């Protein structure tokens, strides 16, 4: 019906996500980014972990891999290194990426290997019914944080930057159109790219934290997401729940599979 839908496995829809779940919106942004870039379906692989968001791989019309909880990045690393001409996109949840998968996340970034990680951040473990994740804000309730989370949340973008990623962006399910561009740029970057997509889980997160329904959660995003330039101008006391979106960081750095190709050349007697 829409041209970008060729990037979906239409026969697998409707997807399994709950009514109002933002995952569908983010997944559409990926498809649109693929269309925008004219990605070759035969030479693109989508790799995901385990979680609601990670079910996305099954709906995307590429070679797709639904790995184990937390392990998408090292599987993806193997695919990329085995066949460096492949574009590899990783779909992951906040728990998948920053809890159990945290180590792989920072090491992927360190190597600056050419993967594009789309982090579906709904601030919760959706799949297992609402336990706190490392991205659940302090004070928010979760089934494992019935008194409100005492943990401080990561800023996954800061973490990726400190670890060595070369492209870092944040978008939201509300800002669906700019999200497409952020993803497309991430895929174009020859190195480790992180796109954090803030998305709503009305069922396991919103409901417990009285954040309204899906539409209400989307509205919250529209009110609190601020383009980076504007965000930087905010006074500390104006910041509150607000957070920056857009391209947050970018650099040029050696890409792992290219560097390794040099080793091969060297070992084979080339220079």
């Amino acid at each position, binding site marked *: 019906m829409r041209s970008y839908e060729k990037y979906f*496995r239409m026969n697998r829809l409707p997807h399994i996500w709950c009514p109002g779940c933002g995952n569908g919106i983010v997944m559409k942004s990926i498809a649109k980014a693929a269309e925008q870039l004219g990605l070759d379906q035969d030479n693109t692989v989508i790799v995901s972990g385990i979680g609601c968001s990670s079910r996305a791989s099954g709906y995307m019309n590429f070679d797709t891999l*639904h790995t184990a909880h937390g392990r998408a990045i090292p599987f993806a*690393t193997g*695919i990329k290194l085995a066949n460096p001409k492949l574009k590899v996109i990783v779909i992951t949840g906040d728990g998948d990426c920053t809890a159990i998968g945290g180590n*792989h996340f920072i*090491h992927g970034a360190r190597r600056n290997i050419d993967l594009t990680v789309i982090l579906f951040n709904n601030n919760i473990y959706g799949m297992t019914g609402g336990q706190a994740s490392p991205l659940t804000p302090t004070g928010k309730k979760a089934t494992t944080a019935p008194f409100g989370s005492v943990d401080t949340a990561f800023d996954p973008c800061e973490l990726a930057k400190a670890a060595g990623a070369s492209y870092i962006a944040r978008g939201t399910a509300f800002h669906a159109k700019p999200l497409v561009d952020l993803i497309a740029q991430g895929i174009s970057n020859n190195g480790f790219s992180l796109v954090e997509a803030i998305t709503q889980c009305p069922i396991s997160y919103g409901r417990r934290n009285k954040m309204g329904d899906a539409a209400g959660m989307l509205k919250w995003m529209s009110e609190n997401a601020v383009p980076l330039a504007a965000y930087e101008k905010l006074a500390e006391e104006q910041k509150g729940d607000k957070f920056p979106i857009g391209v947050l960081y970018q650099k040029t750095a050696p890409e792992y599979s290219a560097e390794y190709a040099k080793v*091969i050349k060297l070992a084979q007697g080339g220079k």
Partner: protein
Amino acid sequence: MSQARLMQGNEACAEGAMAAGVNFFGGYPITPSTEIAEIMAKELPALGGTFIQMEDEIAGIAVVLGAALAGRKALTATSGPGFSLKQELIGYGCIAEIPLVIANVQRMGPATGQPTSPAQGDVMQARWGTHGDHPMIALSPWTVRESFDVAVMAVNYAERFRTPVIILLDEVVGHMREKVVLPKAEDIEIYPRRKPNCTREEGYKPYTPMADLVPNPADFGTGHHIHVTGLIHDETGFPTGSSKVTEDTIQRLHQKISRVQDEITHYDEFFMEDAEYAVLTYGGTARTAYAAVKMARQQGIKVGMVRLMTIWPFADKVIKKVAQKVKKILVPEMNYGQLVLEVERAAAGQAAVISLPKYNTEIFTPKEICTAIEELATEVVK
């Protein structure tokens, strides 16, 4: 390649893997398996292959699974603690049917244990370490040359059955050096990567079993747009909750291997023609057992020896035959008594099964095993 040379077991294992087509290694260092990684790091680039040291053992197996899906023949190597960490993803390899070879150079556990001491303490773990029902192939060499052969075989079985295969080395064989003559490259049979039998347009389903019950999933990047998951899935590769499909799948995973169990059960018999007693042995211990059996024979004791190279699937039939023939079976192992449990089970009361465990950082001496054989021959079966 076909000249006599001194070679280490780990080295032979690495060379064997490369000879069988392995051109990808991912892993994490751990004694006494590290030489395998180090050799790969040095030799793979020249072959156009890829070595990567990952952040931990989990990533070490994940990267190899990924590489295998993208067309490479891939190896990881580890030892006890790392083998434990890899367990979850070994199961992933089983259910997603990914060819994968894991060398576990056993060291003494549990936990950090006695890091440089030899042991055969991961034998049962190799079978049962991951959760859920799954078959397992594990091969244990007893010589350096056989480390090479077993590596070739492991890679071939992984490809043929599309399943993880474990090379169960022990520190004895892994770290010793001995004279070997390797086969010529052209004499090494290589099982090629299985290929899709039809195109997407022709209705290709990546997990449709072929006549040998093994499917032919396409390599990523070959235009088939397949989906691979660790959930139970149907022939299309997509998850299903169907109880029929679930049952069929678990059954097929087991049967693709059990149907050819005899063919992949490799073992040797020595002095068994007239044997009244048998020593059942494997791995490094078998070398000592052989010396002991010869000593005992010199004393006139009618003892033979059965040496298993295929540890899993377990050689039930072989043991049953032996149990029918001999009065007693002695099972020396560098552990608290592990494979002896399987021998006991398979013997089903037909012969007495005697465990000879050793778990004190040292390997058996021929004398120790010989003494145990002497006891077999003098004691009356209770």
